[in-house]
């Protein structure tokens, strides 16, 4: 009897210790698995986009696809050139950046350097809310307010133009630019500012000659990521840009982008047709481009915070 009394707890504690150690390994393994899901997802996205996109090159060769000036996916035989959409996306994105960069950078500098602390948080929240507005709401707002307004203002036959899309995208990309700029500005050591002040520089001179140059890599990262945001945006562009795939887009006429093309046509195309694969190839082009922007932006941004 006495022996058993002694042995049972010993066994229990042995099991307990084993279980404890096993639990450690399980926890490590499970969280490792969770962390790997992002990579797995990225890998699967790559594989499936390419698998569904590459078959289009049985119909059209890669150069004719990227450089073709005509997009008539449903005619027989189909013309599958996406150059008009590449140019459309490029135009809209560039003009959007022309809006987002000055406003984003100025706002970030104002928040980070100028404004009294009392107003800092409300302004920050305002920028965050701007980032939080769903893109379909921007699109709707653009459609019912900005489109008629631009139409009347510029005397255009239709207000659904590249310019309309670019203005809205500018507002949407602004928070990205602003938040990265703000981080970069905050990472500039205070001692540098104080040194400039000690030399008699005004606050503005300090910002212009010390803070902004020191923060330029973060600024550039902000611009690149803002660009990625603008290129990849779908719903807003789809609703306000007019979606006419004409070659050589102009700011004041309807324009088609890469994202809008996918959103517009995917629902109506038969699975497995050249058109279907072409839309996946368009997605692949978008995916690769935004990935490149992000990698370059990351590389540039990593120099951030390496101050003295």
């Amino acid at each position, binding site marked *: 009897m006495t022996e058993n009394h002694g042995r049972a707890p010993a066994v229990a504690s042995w099991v307990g210790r084993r279980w404890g150690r096993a639990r450690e390994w399980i926890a490590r393994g499970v969280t490792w698995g969770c*962390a790997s899901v992002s990579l797995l997802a990225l890998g699967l996205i790559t594989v499936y*986009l390419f698998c569904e996109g590459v078959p289009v090159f049985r119909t059209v060769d890669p150069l004719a696809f990227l450089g073709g000036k005509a997009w008539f996916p449903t005619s027989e035989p189909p013309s599958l050139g996406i150059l008009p959409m590449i140019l459309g996306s490029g135009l809209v994105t560039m003009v959007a950046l022309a809006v987002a960069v000055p406003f984003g950078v100025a706002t970030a500098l104002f928040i980070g350097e100028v404004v009294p602390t009392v107003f800092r948080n409300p302004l920050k929240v305002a920028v965050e809310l*701007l980032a939080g507005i769903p893109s*379909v709401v921007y*699109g709707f707002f653009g459609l019912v307010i900005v489109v008629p307004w631009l139409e009347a203002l510029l005397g255009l036959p239709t207000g659904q133009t590249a310019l309309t899309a670019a203005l809205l995208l500018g507002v949407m990309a602004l928070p990205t630019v602003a938040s990265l700029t703000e981080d970069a500005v905050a990472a500039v050591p205070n001692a540098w500012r104080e040194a400039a002040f000690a030399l008699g520089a005004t606050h503005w001179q300090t910002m212009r000659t010390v803070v902004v140059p020191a923060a330029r890599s973060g600024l550039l990262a902000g611009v690149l990521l803002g660009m990625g945001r603008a290129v990849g945006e779908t719903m807003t562009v789809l609703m306000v840009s007019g979606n006419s795939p004409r070659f050589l887009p102009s700011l004041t006429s309807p324009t088609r982008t890469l994202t809008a093309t996918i959103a517009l046509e995917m629902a109506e195309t038969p699975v497995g047709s050249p058109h279907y694969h072409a839309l*996946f190839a368009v997605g692949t082009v978008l*995916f690769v481009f935004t990935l490149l922007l992000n990698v370059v932006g990351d590389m540039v941004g990593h120099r951030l915070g390496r101050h003295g």
Partner: protein
Amino acid sequence: MSRRWRELVAFSLLGLFALGVLVALGAVLGFIAARGAPALSWEFLTAFPRRGMTEGGIFPALVGTFYLVLGTVIVALPLGVGAAIYLAEYAGDRTWTRIVRIGVNNLAAVPSIVFGLFGLAFFVKALGLGVSILSGSLTLALLVLPLLIRASEEALRAVPREFREGAYALGATRWQVVRSVVIPVAVPGILTGTILAVGRAAGETAPIMFTAAAFYTPRLPQSPLDEVMALPYHLYVMATESTAFWRTRHLQYGTALVLLGFVLTLYLWAAVWRARIRKGKRW
């Protein structure tokens, strides 16, 4: 004197730009709120669309978005928190960790329409889940995963080292420390991230266009494998594709207001909560 003068001009200009941002925000909120408010009523929120979606309410779209978001959180929250625990507690600064981080960053930069394409190719077709709540939720879960990982990791890293060391000193193992000390302290931060993720998932249209959303369903979804109406997609089709879209503008404003109100309330809640967490730290 001219230096002071120049500074004043420069700061005023910066202020004007910042004011421009406020004006943009105010314009969107103001117009949608002013024109959407008259459409709001109990019936609008609780009725099905009628007469080819030219009358009635948005009830099925609300329910659909609720299901989609619920599914997204169920999938993404454990994955996101798990990944954050690994990154913050287990992984050192090794090559593998750096690769995982690059993966998370790049996943965050993938355009939403590309998520939609992937969802169509993988969840809808390859896994055979069809156009369904499940496909849509899984697609949205991948989209919000980076956001959740970053927020959770920040929350975990904000837990002071002394807390962990105190627990280790009492003989706790690493997992015991994580489970009973680190996670409880980090819960508010993780919840803030979750609120943001809900807001993001509720507002996205492009990822669910081909994976979950239906133009119109005569009844509420009966299973996760049913397709659903969803608020953002409903707004899109009402504004652009439905018959007589110019006659239903009041319904569209109402839908936009409900969506905007819901999403921005979440964002505001998260912002206030986060500020309170940062301020209220007493250790």
